[in-house]
């Protein structure tokens, strides 16, 4: 059987996303993406020592990175400049010459505990391939080849949104193009999709999950349902955030079996009843997890979403709905310190509000809608519970806007559903291209000018 031919518009779109991804790869200085230093150290530990980072085996804090990585971080100015807008990476030519002339530091004396140590190794095994392929080069050859391989995952993410729109809306190429472009060209997606981070793999896993859920419920093939289950397990091996896929998987499984047994599709009333039941159950679990702290949970949520209260938990920013969810998902680069002026976020907020206002009335309570809603709600609830726990026990905030990006395919699908006019589609595509350029410009200005 011949493999299906890739549609021409998708090819061109992937070309555009690849251009943007490669530009991000080289524009962002070494390790200047969230926790990229820890993720690189994890890959190096796997490749050089054949194991995951571990506190037990290398308890010294200094051992979280190899001498090679530590030396390169110092020489390149990463250590003195990350998260600090007032400091820049190394710009002068002499330190780079000196670093290149010096003997290479040891690669295998790291392996201690680091910020990524609790993650399962699915992504890191993938990233170890380019690491090993460039093992004859210096640390930057390996880092940048790993980033380039992340761009391949970004292309899969883009294709997943294309496929999702095709599965839900039918063969509507302009709508599919818009959905794929939103997934691949929203700058935060491109930024993370071109860095060394498990998020680069998490995004396509979630995109493919939504597509397979739609296929499983639409075509009722065992192959799709089994792939969906396997993808859920794989997602958990990429990042624990994928535990949020489990409620959706259970729902899809039940609906799938129901339909396979020859019963009619779930009626809207049943779908609503089912989803409300699951939501209530989820809320009860949430309160139980926050055991003994339901009041704190309520106060935390109020402070997170209300612009009126910024006092209860000092660890939270002034208005997390804006500062974390909106700004962090629309554009917060580097270690989140590189941001646009506020009117840009205001424009994004207006566009998102308009999208919700137009899309929500069209939403029908189908089994598929519930399958999409459950992982989304579980992800958001999990993030809040995790953050509340960290605030209460360690006094620090946790949630970042980028953690919402796995839901981007649903936003893309919603946009592709409601934006039908040619001029609007063209305008949005042009807007994405301009937004990419502006994002790369502020990153270039922050780090290099």
């Amino acid at each position, binding site marked *: 059987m011949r493999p299906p031919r890739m549609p021409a518009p998708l090819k061109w779109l992937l070309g555009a996303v690849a251009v943007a991804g490669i530009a991000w790869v080289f524009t962002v200085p070494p390790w200047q993406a969230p926790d990229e230093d820890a993720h690189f150290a994890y890959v190096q530990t796997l490749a050089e020592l054949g194991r995951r980072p571990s506190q037990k085996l290398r308890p010294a804090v200094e051992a979280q990175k190899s001498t090679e990585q530590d030396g390169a971080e110092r020489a390149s100015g990463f250590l003195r400049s990350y998260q600090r807008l007032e400091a820049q990476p190394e710009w002068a030519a002499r330190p780079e010459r000196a670093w290149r002339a010096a003997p290479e530091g040891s690669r295998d004396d790291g392996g201690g505990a680091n910020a990524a140590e609790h993650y399962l190794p699915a992504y890191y095994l993938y990233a170890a391939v380019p690491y090993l392929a460039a093992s004859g080069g210096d640390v930057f050859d390996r880092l940048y080849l790993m980033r380039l391989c992340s761009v391949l995952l970004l292309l899969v993410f883009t294709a997943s949104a294309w496929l999702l729109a095709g599965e839900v809306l039918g063969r509507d190429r302009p709508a599919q193009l818009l959905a794929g472009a939103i997934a691949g060209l929203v700058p935060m997606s491109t930024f993370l999709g071109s860095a060394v981070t498990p998020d680069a793999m998490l995004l396509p896993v979630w995109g493919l999950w939504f597509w397979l859920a739609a296929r499983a419920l639409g075509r009722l093939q065992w192959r799709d349902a089994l792939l969906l289950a396997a993808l859920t397990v794989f997602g958990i091996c990429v990042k624990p955030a994928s535990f949020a896929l489990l409620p959706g998987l259970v729902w899809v499984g039940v609906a799938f079996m129901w339909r396979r047994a020859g019963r009619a599709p779930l009626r809207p009333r049943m779908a609503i009843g089912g989803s409300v039941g699951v939501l209530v159950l989820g809320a009860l679990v949430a309160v139980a997890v926050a055991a003994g702290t339901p009041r704190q949970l309520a106060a935390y949520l109020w402070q997170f979403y209300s612009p009126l209260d910024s006092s209860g938990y000092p660890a939270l920013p002034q208005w997390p709905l804006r500062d974390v969810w909106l700004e962090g998902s629309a554009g917060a680069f580097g270690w989140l310190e590189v941001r646009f002026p506020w009117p840009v976020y205001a424009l994004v907020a207006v566009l998102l509000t308009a999208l919700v206002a137009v899309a929500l009335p069209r939403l029908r309570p189908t089994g598929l809608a519930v399958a999409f809603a459950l992982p989304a709600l579980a992800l958001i609830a999990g993030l809040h519970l995790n953050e509340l726990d960290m605030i209460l026990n360690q006094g620090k905030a946790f949630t970042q806007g980028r953690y919402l990006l796995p839901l981007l395919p649903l936003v893309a699908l919603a946009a592709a559903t409601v934006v039908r006019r040619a001029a609007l589609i063209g305008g949005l595509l042009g807007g994405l291209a301009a937004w990419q350029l502006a994002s790369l410009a502020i990153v270039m200005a922050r780090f*290099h000018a």
Partner: protein
Amino acid sequence: MRKTTAGIAALGVVVVLGVLSLLAAAALDDRERAFTVGLPAVRIAAELQPGDRACRTGIDVPAEFARVRLVTASFRRPGPALTVTAGAARGTVAGGYPDNSTVEARVGPVAEGKRITVCVSNDGERRVALFGSPPDTPPYELGNSNLGPALGLEFLRDKPRSMAALMPDAFERASRFRPAWVGPWTFWILLGLVAAGLPALLAVAYRSAVIDSS
């Protein structure tokens, strides 16, 4: 056909407007700061009694500058006069500045590419503290008392330069600590690809999508 034209025209208009806005922003974005070392200035790096001097050695100069800024504290009294030397250049700060203030010395032009020592002398009759931070230290270690802070210095241009004028320099700097084959040329090509190639690819994709759907 009409669909294709309308979509591509809208795409083109938005991209052109976006690029023009960016060019305007880059032309208006004046940058006074040449570069910095030892920031943020969060801890006392040196306390100078009258006649004392503190230095920071081995500063690579990646961009020409003419002024140096320091963060000072003068213990609830007006600050003493200071002399600042940057390599062979020299400037002064008049006494009488407020406690906990940032002061500036005009030292005259210091060319890019040099490796210099910056020293600050207390020429007054009262003590003054200069702030800085430990070198090569991640943010979570800035307060670590085992790490000694070095002087924090901000080097400023004589006249601000716009972001647009700084682009060649920015591309030069962006090629540092990358794979050895990456150079400033890489970023000029990427700029062309993102500014023109990306919208062109999207336009072709849109045209192809409309044809494929009809």
